[in-house]
């Protein structure tokens, strides 16, 4: 198979409903009004030569290759910048045009190295293609001045910039501006001296404002911006479309391969979540998949003091099964449990929960959503009836007011952030509610109308005060509420929020948000047109996480901002498959499709399919499993793709729980921190090595396709199946599509989903069933899933975690663009050049009081524990608030977080910890002893040669 680049229509599709018919080269074509002549021609099958045009960018008209002749018009207009008109008669191939195009190309080539054969882009170069297309055969100029021989900029770890090959088409600059919205590139100088510059003259790519999203590399038509891997390996020869395994945006990529070697990940233009865009993680940070620290052979050890022993798959699985059986027999079946992974596919997740419910015989299954978005499930199910966001990502293009609360999309959901920023640059208004001055508050060409820099932990108070303003100032959309919601519940809620104690003024001492600002923000949201709310873990990871979600839902209902494009309540999901893991029945109290375990009819459905009797009582949640373990009644756990030691709060508590267990089975890519306490290690497979589906934040089910053979031998679902078989279960799935068929049979919202349909349609947004055969981009269109929308009174209940003389500051945590969660993947890529350690952000006043300067080591201590890291002094955080990320295990930010949690779901209160900061000389005692433990736990005795 030869390599085929993605098709390119030259200019973006027009969206007009009006259709225009014209004639191009004697053939008629009908396209939407606003379409360019170039695109109309392309849609009809005529490719007009072009270099500066690409359909991800608005027409620019600079290369002058795409000139055409139009009857009745003077000159030779550029087809990319000329919109179609009714009855237009266009000629794209005339002797005059051929001569002009050749003339332009002759100029290009007079300033281009003639090294095609040794060029990294040979065979994948638009300049090369177009030179052929216009029939250029010789260059008559004897150039004196050229741009050849300039030094390359190789500073970026993933791509090179070779100015000698640049044709100054500005596609990179425009991609950075229009697609990514970082505007890190420019054209420097003018005329013949024009050249692309990252940042100012003294910058290189790495030192510039570039965030390495790859949009410029993607846009470059030559080898000027080229992936280092392409230079190293050569151009790809085949491509497989798959879904990114980083965040909840769910970008579609083409994994471009040469043999079994991945050459590059290229964002797929048809991907409905990313629309051809990418970020530094998905685009470039996949090197972990081949990292030398990946564990490829199963390993066991009798005790966690022992070194690991490599064994065969059969031996490992037999040992695991015998241990699980022994423990079940000794302590009772309630002593077993499992954790599904939001990193794994729907099918794999479904199997793990099935293993626990049908194999272990209990409901002790939970998932990492417990520690991130479990309040979303609870809150949105209670108010709207569905545990998911209401919109597709496209919806943001119709928003007039965007309210971002407790989310930092620029870092956490970069590709969606780019789409949001594009809308903001076009004029949508922005409200940011966040204790930290995130990038969104003010970044080039974007400035929030309101930044409510609240005191961490007071989300509910702020939202209630907003509701107070909306209700008492008469801004409620009563028609919507009367038609769509329970009116009595609304009135209860309205009278509650109207109470004086809930006014912005009354709550100002608590929230620290100036009342006038808060009122203005509320008015803007209520009256500014389509209002959309996007939120993240800054909402959920609080003691009132669920209440905050419901308070958000209340606001949306009260203002009628639900049920159409441009509005809605949109959780920005952290991991690639958080939505899917929740959908698949990973929570201990519910089966796939959010049906409570106590519901006999639902249980019966599963029991029939699985041929077992199911427990009707909820099982244990992760923190309760750990409690039970410390109490000596929970003894064995199967953890697929989650590193609870690093990711879960109060590390000491997690460690104690794990240490108390007799059989910890970790199924992962690397010896993670949890594996320090494991007895059995089952090597996992990467998303590149498996088939299945992920479900992103917009409920979009997307295919994950195997692009290479699993290095460890098996896809993760196969390992789970083998474990089940070892336990005596009669599982015989031949392919993940069969698992999805079972999911579809058992889950009404997935009834219409199958691998065949996904292959044909690319993706489907659940619910997909009889009432929504094509899926559901927008939910609650005509009515709420639960019937009437439910207003829930959300009283502000302060967290028990309080500052005091010993711990006077509030710590809040988050993540950064280049690193991902516990960093297991990104730390094993060149992304470390952007963030090699976790830093503590502290306000200048607080730093000054403590004699702390940027770069100093500081001790970060809470009631739960302490750690050390380096400080950076910044006004991004307010006085009294400090911030850090949790990407590095040796910092272990979660040593200091507490086990306070959301009242409804036990989602940990990561975002509020009372701490003290003091100067420090080096690691804490705990960090030192942990480093030792880690070293010990990574000793591996190689398998016998015979194995």
């Amino acid at each position: 198979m030869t390599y085929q680049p993605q098709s390119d229509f030259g200019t973006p599709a027009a969206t007009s409903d009006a259709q225009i018919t014209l004639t191009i080269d004697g053939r008629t074509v009908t396209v939407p009004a606003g379409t360019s002549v170039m695109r109309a021609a392309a849609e009809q099958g005529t490719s007009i030569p072009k270099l500066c045009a690409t359909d991800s960018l608005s027409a620019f008209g600079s290369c002058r290759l795409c000139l055409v002749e139009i009857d009745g018009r003077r000159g030779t207009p550029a087809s990319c910048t000329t919109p179609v008109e009714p009855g237009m008669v266009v000629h794209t191939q005339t002797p005059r045009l051929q001569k002009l195009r050749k003339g332009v190309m002759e100029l290009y080539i007079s300033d281009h190295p003639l090294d095609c054969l040794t060029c990294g882009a040979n065979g994948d170069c638009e300049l090369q293609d177009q030179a052929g297309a216009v029939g250029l055969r010789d260059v008559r100029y004897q150039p004196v001045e050229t741009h050849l021989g300039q030094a390359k900029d190789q500073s970026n770890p993933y791509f090179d910039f070779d100015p000698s090959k640049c044709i100054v088409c500005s596609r990179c600059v425009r991609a950075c501006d229009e697609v990514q919205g970082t505007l890190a590139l420019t054209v420097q100088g003018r005329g013949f001296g024009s050249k692309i510059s990252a940042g100012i003259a003294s910058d290189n790519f790495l030192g510039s404002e570039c965030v390495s999203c790859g949009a410029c590399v993607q846009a470059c038509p030559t080898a000027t911006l080229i992936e280092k891997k392409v230079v190293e390996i050569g151009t790809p020869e085949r491509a497989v479309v798959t879904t990114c395994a980083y965040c909840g945006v769910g970008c579609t990529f083409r994994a471009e391969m040469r043999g079994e070697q991945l050459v590059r990940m290229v964002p797929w233009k048809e991907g409905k979540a990313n629309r051809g865009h990418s970020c530094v993680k998905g685009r470039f940070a996949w090197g972990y998949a081949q990292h030398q620290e990946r564990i490829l052979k199963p390993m066991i050890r009798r005790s966690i003091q022992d070194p690991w022993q490599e064994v065969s798959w059969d031996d490992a699985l037999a040992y695991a099964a015998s241990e699980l059986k022994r423990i079940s027999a000794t302590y009772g079946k309630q002593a077993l449990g499992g954790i599904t992974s939001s990193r794994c596919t729907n099918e794999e997740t479904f199997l793990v929960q099935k293993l626990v419910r049908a194999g272990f015989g209990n409901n002790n299954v939970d998932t990492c959503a417990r520690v991130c978005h479990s309040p979303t499930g609870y809150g949105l199910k209670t108010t709207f009836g569905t545990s998911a966001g209401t919109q597709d990502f496209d919806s943001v293009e119709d928003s007039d007011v965007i309210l971002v609360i407790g989310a930092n999309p620029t870092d956490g959901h970069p590709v969606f952030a780019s789409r949001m920023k594009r809308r903001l640059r076009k004029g949508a208004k922005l409200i940011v509610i966040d204790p930290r001055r995130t990038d969104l508050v003010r970044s080039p060409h974007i400035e929030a109308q309101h930044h409510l820099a609240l005191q961490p932990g007071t989300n509910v108070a702020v939202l209630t005060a907003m509701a107070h303003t909306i209700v008492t100032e008469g801004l409620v959309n009563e028609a919507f509420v009367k038609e769509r919601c329970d009116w009595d519940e609304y009135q209860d809620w309205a009278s509650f929020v109207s109470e004086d104690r809930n006014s912005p003024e009354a709550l100002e001492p608590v929230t620290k948000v100036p009342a006038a600002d808060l009122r203005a923000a509320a008015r803007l949201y209520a009256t500014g047109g389509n209002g959309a709310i996007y939120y993240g873990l800054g909402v959920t990871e609080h003691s009132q996480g669920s209440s905050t979600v419901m308070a958000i839902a209340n606001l949306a209902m009260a203002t009628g901002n639900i049920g159409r494009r441009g509005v809605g309540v949109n959780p920005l999901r952290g991991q690639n498959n958080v939505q899917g893991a929740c959908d698949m029945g990973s929570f201990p109290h519910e089966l796939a499709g959010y049906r409570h375990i106590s519901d006999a009819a639902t249980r019966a459905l599963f029991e029939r399919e699985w041929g077992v009797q199911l427990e009707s009582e909820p099982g244990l949640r992760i923190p309760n499993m750990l409690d039970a373990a410390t109490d000596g009644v929970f003894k064995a756990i199967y953890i697929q793709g989650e590193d609870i030691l690093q990711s879960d709060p109060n590390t000491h508590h997690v460690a104690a729980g794990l240490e108390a267990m007799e059989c910890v089975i970790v199924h992962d890519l690397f010896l993670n921190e949890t594996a320090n306490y494991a007895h059995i290690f089952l090597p996992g497979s990467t998303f590149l090595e498996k088939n299945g589906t992920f479900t992103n934040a917009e409920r979009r089910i997307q295919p994950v396709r195997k692009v290479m053979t699993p290095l460890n031998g098996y896809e993760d679902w196969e390992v789970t199946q083998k474990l089940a078989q070892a336990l005596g279960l009669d599982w015989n799935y031949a392919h993940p599509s069969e698992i999805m068929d079972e999911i579809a049979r058992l889950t009404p919202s997935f009834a219409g989903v199958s691998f065949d349909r996904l292959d044909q349609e690319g993706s489907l947004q659940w619910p997909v069933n009889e009432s929504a055969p094509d899926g559901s981009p927008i939910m609650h269109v005509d009515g709420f899933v639960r019937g009437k929308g439910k207003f829930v009174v959300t009283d502000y209940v302060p967290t028990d975690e309080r500052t005091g003389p010993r711990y006077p500051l509030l710590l809040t945590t988050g993540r950064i663009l280049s690193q991902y969660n516990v960093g297991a993947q990104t730390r094993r890529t060149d992304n470390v050049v952007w963030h090699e350690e976790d830093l503590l952000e502290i306000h200048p006043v607080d730093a000054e009081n403590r004699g702390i300067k940027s770069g100093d080591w500081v001790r970060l201590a809470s009631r739960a524990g302490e750690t050390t890291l380096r400080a950076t002094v910044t006004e991004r955080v307010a006085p009294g608030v400090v911030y850090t990320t949790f990407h590095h295990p040796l910092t272990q930010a979660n040593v200091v977080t507490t086990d306070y949690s959301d009242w409804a779901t036990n989602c940990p209160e990561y975002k509020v910890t009372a701490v003290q900061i003091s100067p420090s000389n080096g690691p804490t005692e705990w960090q030192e002893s942990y480093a030792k433990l880690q070293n010990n736990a990574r000793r591996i005795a190689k398998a016998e040669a015979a194995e």
Partner: protein
Amino acid sequence: MTVQDILDRHRGIEGALLPILHDVQAAFGHVSEEAIKTIASSLNLTRAEVHGVVSFYHDFKSAPEGRPVLKICRAEACQARGVDALVSELADNGRVKLETVYCLGLCSVGPAAMTGDKVHARLDTAKLQALVDSL
């Protein structure tokens, strides 16, 4: 006068970048990279954008010019009146920076030149030399 003073003076006007850059160039004789960063952050632009603008326009210099500057019009009307010969005859020891400009709007009385805001016309060899020597 600091860059910040200049920024404050232009706060709130639309399309403020060129007026700001003119003032910075006038105050400091060039637009430094530090100034670019300050301006970018104040106008909520990227430093790349400001750099692109600064480098586009010939009036903005990246480094200060220590020497006195004489701008000589070398456009057609002054060519027709012999400016090329005039310049080639000029005894120039490099003490004065000779800059080419294209047209000062004095096309009927060329060759013409400008020093600061002062314009000079009907230059001949002697007058031009005198002008250079006076700087």
